[in-house]
């Protein structure tokens, strides 16, 4: 087996723009599948709507392309029905944090064993470049022609506050680290969130002097800082930086489907 066995190669080339980070993130994810030797038949891979949503076509597993913002709700049904299976969700920043925000915080609150990867390119790419809950301040987008005033979510803080028991962030410019981080999140028992900072030069970049993938990846590289390096800096120096690493890991808290099995015993139900 190689990571390519988790790719529906007969569906390549995929439809993402040249230089888009989604393909890189997909590779990091399937490498994690391969590293853990997960059987394809045991994986449910569920996506929402948006550029990232198209990934369910290309991953060779039990896949589902659901509705905008709702993959976690579908995944909850799949996981509760078959708790012994691996359930993985990929969602964009708009998909997970805007329309899907309610399902994001509740899946985290439940600590249900679903592996979420949020591809955060800070824009609605599929629909032509509208503002998203993570679009930087004063950035121009199709719906913020006078500069974005929409305050941003801190995805990591939001996930931790809601109850996720593994929360981490990496960047598409460090795909090897991202693959390792995703692998680690897959091994965690409970709701895990990996935020992958990504680039959309076609929509977000083009309107903000970052018009190609090289320029935009350089811009991302200038903004990111690994956690261990950030620790040694004084806060003022890194206040605009995006810190990468594992922010939260709670191995004690019981996972939702485990609690449900106990509930069935209490109800005297036969398994």
């Amino acid at each position, binding site marked *: 087996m190689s990571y390519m066995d988790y790719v529906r190669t007969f*569906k390549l080339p995929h439809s993402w723009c040249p230089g888009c980070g989604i393909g890189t993130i997909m590779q990091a994810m399937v490498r994690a599948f391969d590293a853990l030797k997960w059987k*394809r*038949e*045991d994986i*449910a891979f*569920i996506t929402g*709507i948006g550029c990232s949503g*198209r990934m*369910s*076509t290309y991953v*060779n*597993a*039990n*896949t*589902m*392309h*659901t*509705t905008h913002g*709702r993959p976690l*709700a*579908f*995944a*909850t*049904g*799949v996981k*509760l*029905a*078959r708790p012994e*299976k691996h359930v993985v969700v990929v969602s964009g920043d708009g998909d997970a944090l805007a329309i899907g925000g*309610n*399902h994001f915080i*509740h899946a985290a609150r439940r600590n249900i064993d679903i592996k979420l990867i949020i591809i955060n390119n800070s824009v609605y790419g599929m629909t032509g470049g509208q503002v998203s809950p993570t679009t930087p301040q004063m950035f121009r987008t199709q719906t913020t022609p006078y500069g974005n005033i929409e305050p941003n979510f801190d995805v990591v803080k939001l996930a931790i506050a809601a109850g996720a028991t593994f929360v981490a962030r990496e960047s598409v410019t460090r795909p090897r680290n991202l693959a390792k981080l995703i692998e680690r999140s897959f091994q965690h028992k409970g709701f895990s969130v990996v935020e992958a900072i990504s680039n959309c030069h076609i929509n977000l970049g083009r309107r903000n002097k970052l018009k190609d993938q090289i320029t935009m990846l350089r811009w991302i590289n200038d903004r990111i800082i690994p956690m261990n390096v950030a620790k040694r800096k004084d806060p003022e120096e890194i206040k605009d930086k995006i810190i990468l690493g594992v922010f939260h890991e709670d191995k004690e808290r019981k996972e939702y489907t485990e609690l*449900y099995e106990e*509930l*069935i015993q*209490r*109800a*005297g*139900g*036969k*398994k």
Partner: protein
Amino acid sequence: MKKVVMPGNETVAHAAIAAGCRFYAGYPITPSSELAAEMSKLLPRVGGKFIQMEDEIASMAAAIGASVAGMKSMTATSGPGFSLKQEHIGLACMMEVPVVIVNVMRGGPSTGLPTHPAQGDVMQARWGTHGDHPIIVLAPAFPTEIYMETIRAFNLAERYRNPVILLLDEILAHTYEVVEVPEEDEITLEERKLPPSGLDRLDFYTYERHEGDPPLLPNFFQGYNFHFESLAHDEMGFPTTDPEKVAYLSHLREAKIEKHKEKIWKNESYLVEDAELVVFAYGSVARAAKEAIDRLRAEGEKVGLFRPITLWPFPDKPLKRAVGKKKVLVAEMNLGQMVYEVERVLRRDVATLLKADGTPISPVEFTEKLREEL
């Protein structure tokens, strides 16, 4: 058979368990909440799964997810929640996934009259979700019928791989009545047909599928790594915009219901043979109609009832057969919805008894109106 006194909401829950439902996702909403409460009690006892999701949209999604994972699943709601679930009902139609949705109708629109009955969602049950799509909608009226129609809802969903909507209203949901609960061996259950394992193919939306058949789709984790797609998709489930493929699969989805209408229809014709006036009514309204008809018949008036139990697909032929040229009066707890179907099918105007003030149409109101029309 054993007799049990219970309200409609509980009847549906017990029937669902008997039908093999092992997953329920719901959200509290009057007047359907008791159904969720009952499922939360019953499912764990049979090793089933219950979850109260964060909203109705999520509930519908979770129910579909569980079905794709191989379980018979159900969700229940009322008007406002029914509106929220529409997008995912459409998804279940597009992916051809079996799921049962119970809608306990209350006064609408908007928050309306949460604790009062109505029948104002019958067109929404047919056309609520956007785009052309096949749907089956059942409307039981009597306690034991609610039990049996719940089982039929699951069987139809599994047989045709399609969402099935079961309509109750606040009266049926909350009224304690005697339900004749059949023994296990008295009911026949259907399971979705699955493709054999080990085939070297993925085109399950057309594999061995003749016009009018449901697709032979695998469940998740059956070994096929199949793709369930909410976009228009091809025979393998992958997105396509090829007009021919889009039209072909859309046609197959419609045909699987259209071709079996006769088997899906279920109606009650009561004293129509010699009737001069036939009442068209469904759900709880039909029960008041029947009482009025009995009273008028006792006075020698020739009145009958045509009661559809399957609302959609609409029973056009059975209605024509039952009514012929006779005078018709359509009675509904709304400002006129099914009446348009009746007039379309009969190609003539009909009398109506419409009431949408949150109170049921009483037998007395019926007798007065019927006397006027006779």
